[in-house]
């Protein structure tokens, strides 16, 4: 029963996301065709575009066509270059995924060990230093952290390329920009949830059994402490995905975030629509995955009972 309810909720969210992205183009003040093409374009071209986008038909019918086209993997085409949008997304999306994935690894790789360390040193100066650094880091939005990293590692030290994608090492700075912010949040979260668990009876039991400290922490405490961390990672993937828009713009990383910004600058709204849709759907899927992972990590949670 619960499973069906979940599935229903999931489908209605997807439907809502589709509806909202579809409506975006209708939020354009005035005539979207005029806004997109500018005033210097002939009447025939405008009529053509209006018909291409289906804007001359009733709203319900437009939405129906939109859904039917999407179902066939047809996102329409760019109004300027006439390239099918699917092609644009196919070339750009992998770059964003690569960036997001590496950022996640950096975030987890720094955040969890540092959080464990802070929890073990709770109250000592090491804990305080970690706290201060992570609070500062989480107050640094990508459009400030990015330039600072660029200034230090690319301009002053010259170790890494300033921007672009030609070089393999070019991914490091944008991934650090996104990953460091994530690691700051994960550090604090890991510390808190580990501290909560460390006072539990079963940890005392584990210690009393004579287990080594590392085994107590890694096998007993961390397993329980991981649950809230999974949720946080799932939620943070959202800001990671949204953060790619800004980070990709700063570092000229040709992902879907930069495609979004470029399409906005060119007023190529069908492309904007498609980018927003793809990012939102990715986020919904990540959340679904988080739910499933949570279930796997916590045997107490069973949806289908």
């Amino acid at each position, binding site marked *: 029963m619960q499973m069906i309810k979940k599935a229903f*909720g999931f489908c*209605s*969210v997807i439907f*809502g*996301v589709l*509806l*909202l*992205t579809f409506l*975006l*183009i209708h*939020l*354009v*003040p005035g005539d979207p065709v005029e*806004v997109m093409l500018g005033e210097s374009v002939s009447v025939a071209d405008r009529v053509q575009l209006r018909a291409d986008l289906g804007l001359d038909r009733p709203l319900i019918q437009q939405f129906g066509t939109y859904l039917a086209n999407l179902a066939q993997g047809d996102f329409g085409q760019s109004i300027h270059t006439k390239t099918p949008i699917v092609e644009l997304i196919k070339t750009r999306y992998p770059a964003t995924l690569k960036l997001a994935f590496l950022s996640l690894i950096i975030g987890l790789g720094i955040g969890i060990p540092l959080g464990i360390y802070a929890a073990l040193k709770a109250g000592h100066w090491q804990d305080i230093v970690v706290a201060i650094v992570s*609070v*500062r880091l989480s*107050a*640094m*939005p990508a*459009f*400030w952290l*990015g*330039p*600072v990293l*660029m*200034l230090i590692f690319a*301009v002053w030290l010259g170790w890494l390329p300033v921007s672009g994608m030609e070089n393999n090492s070019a991914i490091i700075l944008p991934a650090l920009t996104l990953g460091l912010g994530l690691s700051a949040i994960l550090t604090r979260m890991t510390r808190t949830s580990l501290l909560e668990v460390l006072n539990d009876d079963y940890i005392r039991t584990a210690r009393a059994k004579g287990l080594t400290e590392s085994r107590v922490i890694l096998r007993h405490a961390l397993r329980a402490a991981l649950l809230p961390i999974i949720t946080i990672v799932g939620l943070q*993937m*959202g*800001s*990671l*995905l*949204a*953060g790619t*828009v*800004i980070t990709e*713009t*700063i570092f000229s990383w040709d992902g879907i975030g930069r495609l*979004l*910004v470029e399409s*906005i*600058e060119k007023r190529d*709204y069908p492309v*904007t629509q498609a980018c*927003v849709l793809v*990012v*939102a759907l990715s*986020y*919904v899927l990540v*959340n679904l995955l988080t739910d499933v992972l949570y279930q796997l990590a916590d045997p107490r949670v069973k949806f289908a009972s």
Partner: protein
Amino acid sequence: MKKFALIILGFWLFSVAAGRLLELNPTAIDLNAILSAPNAHFLLGTDDLGRSIVARLLRGVEVSFMVAITVTCVTMAIGVLVGLVAGFYGGRVDQILMQVTDVFLAFPGILLAIAFAAVLGPGLGNLILALCLTGWVSYARLTRGQTLSLRNRQHVQAAESLGAGVTRLIFRHILPLLLSILVVEATYSLASVMIAEASLSFLGLGIQAPNASWGAMLRDAVRYMLVAPHYVLIVGVSLMSLILAINLGGDALRDILDVKTDD
């Protein structure tokens, strides 16, 4: 830490007032002093058009606060109303309203605000509109959850059995108990709206030239990072100090008002 937050906030308040009193001009162009480093005449140097960075920073923080306060007030009013209605009535109404918030929450971070700002077009008014359209959801969620549990409190049920109407129950018996948690939430949201405003302006979607905005300044600063690294550092440090101070202020308020938050 609280003192630190107060000092930073006081500093910005004082500087803005001083800037107004001294009639610093954020749009005065001096083409003989483009991207100059901090000096006696220009305290923090100049930008790519020779405009004083100090003057632009101060005007920028004013605009930023104006946007943050407007957006916070509007989104809180809408969100709280939606949350109260959903939590109070429950059932069908709650289901539908929460479905709507679920859809809004399916768009990560500021993506939806970017999308709205993109189609609405650039400018201060549209920027505020885009942030309002997306910002109410968190208040609705928070209020709804609290209202659900307050709805069954004894004092609410007592008032109901004494014949109090719906509006009286909601506004006299439930809303006052939510105020402290909402004040704390509003403080944090000031900071996040400021970041969102700066992000949108950074992407060129917000406040337009020649008006000063920290996001737009950062965008220019990044462009001229190689020749004038002080520019990007000054704007960035300013922004970070303010965000940090507001968040610390939120922490302090939370302690003072004794609000328990789960997250």
